[in-house]
């Protein structure tokens, strides 16, 4: 907040001679809010949840094993509420894992699926729906209505948070962008789209608890890994590796900020 306020003031001062802050006028944003309200019913992500539940329970992979013994942090087979506590430290892998990374652990250890088969093409496309995306939909759906409760008790969890925070402010690439370029001031928009300010707890909570989501513009369910991936694309960065530590750290930084808010995903986004 602090710095961004100063920075905002600096920008406004620099241009004060001939401009007024555009967000002072809010009617268009109000109309967008109405639009979102109108499409909030009937979320096609439900189909992804259904498919994910089937995949979870069905024997799969070279081992013909189901995912039902997968430990998402609350014990083997416990799915309910698990997403609201992720990312977290797992002693068996000795690392902090987000949901996608943990699903990979289960798909490789329980089902025997090689990791590269999962991570080679982890996002949906034309007539292509990777299993991991549907599993994500199912697992997050099982935390709907559960309060976010991400812990930083383990030193590795704290470390992930601290690194995630640093990644968030890391300016690089041909456009000199960081995550913070768009997401550290209140009430900003890109074009017509509101940008959540991750330095503002209310914004951070609202954003984090409505992802993953069905994106109507793409007609597809999108995971949080996809959300980060596409942010980095538009940040003009190279591509973050799927479920890599940098993405987990950043997720930890954002997930922690959503604590106490009730998880409401999968969401429905424009």
């Amino acid at each position, binding site marked *: 907040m602090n710095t961004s306020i100063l920075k905002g003031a600096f920008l406004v001062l620099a241009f004060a001679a001939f401009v007024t802050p555009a967000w002072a006028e809010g009617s268009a944003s109000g109309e967008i809010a109405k639009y979102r309200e109108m499409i909030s019913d009937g979320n096609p992500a439900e*189909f992804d949840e259904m498919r994910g539940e089937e995949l979870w329970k069905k024997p799969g992979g070279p081992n013909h094993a189901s995912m039902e013994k997968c430990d998402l942090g609350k014990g083997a087979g416990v799915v309910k509420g698990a997403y609201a506590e992720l990312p977290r430290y797992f002693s068996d892998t000795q690392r902090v894992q987000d949901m996608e990374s943990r699903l990979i652990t289960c798909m490789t250890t329980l089902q025997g699926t090689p990791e590269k088969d999962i991570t080679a093409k982890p996002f949906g496309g034309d007539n292509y729906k990777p299993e991991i995306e549907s599993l994500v939909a199912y697992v997050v759906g099982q935390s709907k209505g559960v309060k976010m409760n991400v812990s930083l008790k383990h030193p590795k969890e704290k470390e992930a948070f601290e690194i995630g925070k640093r990644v968030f402010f890391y300016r690089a690439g041909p456009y000199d962008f960081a995550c913070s370029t768009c997401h550290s001031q209140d009430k900003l928009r890109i074009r017509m789209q509101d940008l959540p300010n991750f330095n503002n707890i209310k914004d951070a909570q609202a954003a984090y608890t409505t992802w993953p989501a069905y994106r109507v513009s793409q007609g597809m369910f999108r995971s949080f890994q996809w959300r980060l991936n596409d942010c980095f694309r538009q940040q003009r960065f190279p591509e973050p590796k799927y479920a890599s530590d940098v993405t987990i750290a950043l997720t930890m930084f954002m997930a922690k900020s959503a604590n106490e808010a009730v998880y409401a995903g999968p969401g429905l986004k424009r």
Partner: protein
Amino acid sequence: MGNPMKIRASVKDGVTEVKVLMQHEMETGLRKDADGKLVPAWHITEVKAQHNGKTVLESQFGTAISKNPYLVFRFKGGIPGEKVSVNWVDNKGDTRTDEAEIS
């Protein structure tokens, strides 16, 4: 056979409201794929709904209905436990019927 629908039907003050979410690509025939080739039109053409064997809605869709079509309609009557069924047909002749209990 197409993918399952989600149907929710609830009765209030003697009127049953039915919300249907269908799974369908609804290709317009005007979109190009990544290789620049036109993706052929593929969309639902007809939707019918029945309650107690009586037709309560008939509808024809063009290509402008959004992917994974959503539909809400209301009819008089309906008692909790009774069934509402919805059927769609697409331009490739594929079809799907699902039903839901009125709550």
